């Protein structure tokens, strides 16, 4: 039985962390593994009063099977359906579609099989089989997701039973293609903390001791007139005038001039980011650009400025044909150019596609290692990481660097942000990491909308590419190699990736600051960081040991790089999922035990001190000393 709920009916139920789809699914080793058991439905009718149409009480209050809906989430259709679970047999159940998610719950057995998929992760919906196709469960839908899984549903063959559900999924999964709004603009979620305040550009620059005698802040881009994909506040060499900047902009692809990303407090070396110079076939030169790069070099007396071109040499040469290119030796005499051999977005997309082929639904068995190698995914990770290591090493040895690729929003963002993560321990904290993403990725115009294709039906769009996923994978590799250096845990990374696609938060929407501003993303949507920071305990790495001045150099060797199984293969129930790593579990147990003992000792001391007044025992001092000694490390 299916029912379409009038769009006026709001079902506002409190969103809770525990119901968040992403978290549950990573954690659980549920046999069905379609999704994890959902936390018990909170029956308190919180959304009641906010609902404008309270007459159809029964329908409204029926929860989405057993999961609470988000404020602003609306039910669209329910339908009996068969979920063709690739790990088990076909599962009979019911699917619920809202304007935010697809939720499936089985009805055929005691062991729960559920799916909780935000419609935002869907990249493609297809009809499978026809009314006349034979074979069991041959008629239905196939849904391709952006998060490394596909979903297949079967329906009854008679009566065009899939027509309505297909159309509804198609419409709500791709709202932008249907003149509708993304769910982030419909969500009514409220959090105590406002995540939009996590990053304030000026505050972050001040933390880096900027501006100073070498570097100044310019507001030349306050109306996005210099560069429409850059943020409003930019840091440039003190000696460069705004007029200089305008002339440099003319020589840089999409006007993305070299601007400061990070400043080394001790040696004053900097990481600059930009796009390629517009050299073209004829090998054009631009005196202003050359002088500008020299100003960067001079700022801390670097003898030779290193320019890291993220691309392979041949690609950089090929870009000349389209007007781009790279800094030639003779034009930039005080600079050294290094190519980092990182491939473009198309190569990365194909690589991830290959990876999906070998891990979903079944993990390639007979030749796992050579299959993994043939995807080249880890090889790309290795190149990105080793590029970032070179940048970080150069900067920590006191030389300033300029990093660019073609447009300076994909590989450049990967390199600068990873190098900053290696150099600056602030970015390894929970808050600092958010700032890093907001700064290097979001404000500097990584084209999230184009790369992810939020709400867009065009699944074959050549602009889509898992660049940000690749960056998060690199971060994960670093957390694996340095398990005590990061304040946040793996769960945060998975949550970030899940909401990269979900469209529940405004954080990753649109291509650049100017577009975000004109669509009032800050005013109309909730930030992912509101959600994360309202319960940080979930994302804290218990082993974190702050070491402020330490530069982290991961080992970018295949010997250490490994496939992020708990992300890429998390849908597969057979792959060993440990709810919590045994080390972490043991550590937490011990922490609890220590607290318990400390409390007990405290109590004993308290009773001692009362005793002491009566009879002073010489022994009483020993435990006291012990405790102070023990507490010092904390």
């Amino acid at each position, binding site marked *: 039985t299916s029912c379409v709920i009038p769009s006026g009916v709001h079902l506002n139920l409190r969103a809770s962390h525990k119901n968040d789809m992403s978290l549950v699914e990573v954690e659980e080793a549920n046999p069905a593994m379609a999704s994890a058991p959902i936390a018990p439905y909170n029956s308190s009718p919180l959304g009641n009063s906010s609902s404008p149409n309270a007459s159809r009480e029964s329908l409204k209050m029926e929860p989405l099977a057993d999961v609470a809906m988000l404020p602003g989430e609306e039910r669209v259709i329910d339908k009996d359906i068969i979920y063709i679970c690739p790990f088990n047999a076909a599962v009979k159940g019911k699917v619920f579609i809202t304007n935010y998610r697809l939720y499936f719950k089985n009805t055929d057995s005691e062991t729960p099989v559920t799916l909780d998929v935000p419609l935002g992760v869907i990249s493609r919906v297809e009809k499978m089989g026809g009314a006349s196709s034979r074979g069991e469960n041959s008629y239905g839908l196939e849904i391709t997701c952006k998060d490394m899984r596909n979903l297949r549903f079967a329906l009854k063959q008679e009566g065009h039973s899939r027509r309505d559900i297909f159309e509804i999924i198609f419409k709500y999964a791709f709202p932008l293609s249907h003149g509708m709004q993304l769910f982030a603009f419909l969500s009514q979620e409220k959090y105590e903390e406002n995540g939009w305040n996590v990053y304030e550009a000026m505050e972050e620059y001040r933390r880096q001791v900027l501006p100073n005698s070498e570097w100044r802040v310019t507001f030349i881009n306050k109306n996005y007139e210099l560069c429409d994909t850059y943020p409003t506040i930019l840091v440039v060499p003190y000696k460069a005038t705004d007029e200089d900047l305008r002339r440099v902009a003319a020589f840089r692809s999409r006007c993305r001039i070299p601007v400061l990303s990070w400043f080394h407090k001790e040696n004053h070396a900097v990481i600059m980011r930009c796009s390629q110079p517009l050299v073209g076939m004829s090998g054009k030169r631009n005196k202003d650009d050359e002088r500008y790069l020299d100003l960067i070099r001079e700022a801390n007396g670097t003898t030779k400025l290193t320019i890291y071109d993220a691309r392979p040499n041949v690609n950089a040469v090929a870009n000349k044909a389209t007007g781009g290119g790279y800094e030639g030796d003779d034009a930039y005499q005080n600079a050294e150019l290094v190519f980092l051999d990182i491939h473009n977005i198309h190569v990365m997309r194909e690589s991830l596609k290959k990876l999906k082929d070998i891990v979903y639904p079944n993990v390639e068995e007979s030749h*796992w*290692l050579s299959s*993994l190698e043939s995807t080249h995914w880890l090889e790309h990770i290795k190149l990105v990481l080793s590029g970032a290591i070179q940048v970080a090493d150069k900067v920590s040895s006191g030389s300033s660097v300029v990093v660019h690729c073609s447009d300076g929003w994909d590989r450049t963002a990967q390199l600068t942000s990873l190098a900053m993560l290696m150099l600056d321990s602030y970015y390894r904290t929970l808050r600092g990491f958010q700032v890093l993403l907001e700064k290097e990725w979001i404000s500097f115009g990584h084209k999230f909308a184009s790369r992810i294709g939020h709400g867009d039906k065009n699944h074959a769009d050549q602009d889509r590419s898992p660049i940000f996923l690749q960056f998060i994978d690199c971060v994960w590799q670093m957390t694996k190699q340095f398990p005590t250096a990061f304040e946040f845990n793996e769960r945060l990374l998975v949550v970030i990736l899940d909401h990269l696609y979900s469209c529940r938060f405004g954080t990753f929407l649109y291509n650049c600051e100017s577009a975000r501003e004109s669509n009032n993303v800050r005013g109309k949507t909730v930030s992912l960081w509101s959600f994360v920071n309202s319960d940080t305990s979930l994302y804290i790495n218990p082993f974190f040991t702050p070491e402020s001045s*330490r530069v982290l150099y991961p*080992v970018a060797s295949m*010997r250490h790089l490994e496939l992020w199984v708990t992300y890429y293969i998390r849908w597969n129930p057979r792959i060993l999922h440990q709810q919590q790593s045994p080390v972490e579990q043991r*550590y937490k147990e011990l922490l609890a035990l*220590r607290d318990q003992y400390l409390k007990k000792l405290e109590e*004993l001391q308290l009773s001692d001190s009362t005793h002491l007044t009566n009879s002073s025992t010489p022994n009483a001092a020993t435990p006291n000393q012990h405790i102070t000694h023990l507490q010092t490390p904390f």
Partner: protein
Amino acid sequence: MLSLGSVGAKSTKPSFVSYVTPEEIKLEKEPPKKLKHPDLLPGEVEFCSANPILKYTQDDLSQRGVFGTLFCTNFRITFISDEKSQEETTKTFKNKLYGENDIPLMFVDHIYGVYDEKRKLITGALVKNKYPSKIIIHCKDLRVFQFCLTYTKEEDAKKIFQGIAHHCLEEKSLKCVFAFSYTGTPSPEMQRKRETILFDSPEDWTQEMKRTKANCRLVTENENFELSQRLPKYFVIPSALGDLFSYQGKGFPIWCWSHYSGCALFKASLPPVTQEDGDFQKHFDIMINAVAHNYLYSAKTEDLSESLPTIQDIQQSYNKFKQFFLIENSTDFWLSDMKWFSSLESSGWLDIIRQCLQKAVEVVECLEKDNTNVLITEEEGTDLCCVISSLVQIMLDPYYRTLMGFQSLVQKEWVAGCHAFLDRCNHLHQKDKECYSPVFLLFLECVWQLVQQHSPAFQFSETYLTVLSDSVHMPVFSTFLFNSAHHRESVLKAESPLAQSSPLSCPTVWDWSVQFDSKAQNYFFNPLYSEKVKHEKAVRKPHKLKHQRQLSLPSTAFKTPFKKGFFKDETDSLKKMLRVKRLSRWMGSPDSTAAISREFYESWQQRPLDYHGLLLPCLDGPAVRVWMQRYLRWIPEVHILGGGSVAVMTKLMELLSQVQDLKRVLEQRDSSQAAKPDHRPYIQHRLLSFGSSGRLPSSFPFAYSRNRSFKPIIPTGLMQCLMLTDSLASQEDEASSFVSLV
């Protein structure tokens, strides 16, 4: 790298350029005043030495080195640096018998000589009169040493080279093994006997049968090896088996372990089945009947030589595999990094590990799920049978996951069980390579997979396994030195200094104090081990434990208290019928068994994990991994300073010590409060001193505490390597043309 012998291409590598010119040496080196001599072990004798020898430091491309003296003794090759090194003294995890510059002779795997920039495999001492300019030693513990001989006097160089080649590569007699010269005083025997069960007495076996409630018969007839010299001194057989002397020369089922349900695992040596061999078939039927009689007249058999790789396959695979870790320089390292995964796969080593674990899971399923007796067979009965039966026992019996339990298991299945260690490890460098095969290492590899997947289930750490894998080649212990119990006894008797009175006593490897002080031994314990809850532990009765490891309750309806006479009353026909039903050779097509055991794994996986219960490995591609600690510990390129799992363990240990301190304080308070002495023992203080210095390399505790720069290791791509060689080649061309002009 895979082809041994001369590798011509290697010689053109830029890394062979020595940056130390003879002039520099004169500056650096004072005329030798006094030769420093190594501290010899009791019984160790120095054969020859040479000075100055340049030992290349492994961890940079420039091939710089340290000057010193190279010695060869009856125990080791040792290099003593002219400079003073404090490294050794500061090391927390130090082997008392050998240090970082020592190579016990039995550790030597291959020696290469570099002659005129060409690398050649040295196969014996009698290689012309020429000695190489450089020798490269690959060790069985995967260390690589490179010594340059060109700075020393020709006769010294010749002598040391021939000495090393002779003592390491020439086939030698067992008597020459250092263990027979070693006169170190073993620590009191009693203490360690109490801990590790050696299975060299009838009592040990009786005790083990009692522990597992086995219903079998102890055989003492082989006490003087009258039955067979290939059989253990004492062993256990199905009680239904008749007079053993009548089966002489043929194999018979030897009991390994009994499941709590009553069914048991047996192993047997069996020659490969020749068809239409009626005699064999008859004997086989008798055996399988005897096995079936053990419990409910059920039996399954598995011929391991049919379904698992041969020992030659294992050896070939490991030979390929280990090459990837014997890294001589950075260029090699980064070149091999490109095709790392496919190289690993091409060796097949991980796949062999997977196959063994898979087979063990299948046997476990028979015992645990079907409650049938299992008989595993192979030609010798002491190779893969040992691997599989040991793995099965580790998966099913939590006792074998304790340190002492594990050591007892190795004694039971491998040492007392007559695994031919001497031949398999090729301790004597016999030219006949047929019988050499790292079977025991394969077993340790499988155990490591289990340890890394289910760490809290094991009392011992991976460091323990790594050390054990090295200790196999330590020529001090008798444990891994012989081919069988008979071999051990006869040799030890013959070699005894006081003939006739008592056999020579060599320390067993389980006497860890010979190699490590008690502090270092703490690294053998896994801090994540989830011990049993106290009150259960206090009971200490093994049969109590058994109920804990039940996966599912066996169908008690089938249980009968008088098993022995169970079939006595049955009519023959019923017996036949039952036999047809339950007696089966159980291998179907490989696909179907894989699917079935997958089901078994999944149903196990769905239950809450009990670390003291059944343990199964995940065998999917990403789950079977390279034993990083063992294989990567000496490669500086992969060391993560302040990272790796060591960093987390350090934190854990810090906290653990705090908790233990607190607990002690509380207990002291308790006892003083109660005003009477405290009888409860404190929890053993297994505190690892990871050192307060903070950043340890990921290879800890094996890596040297070398003062490493904080410079990152930047991978060199293939392109860069090629460019480098090109430019160097052109330089060489210029140089040669210059020479010709002169």
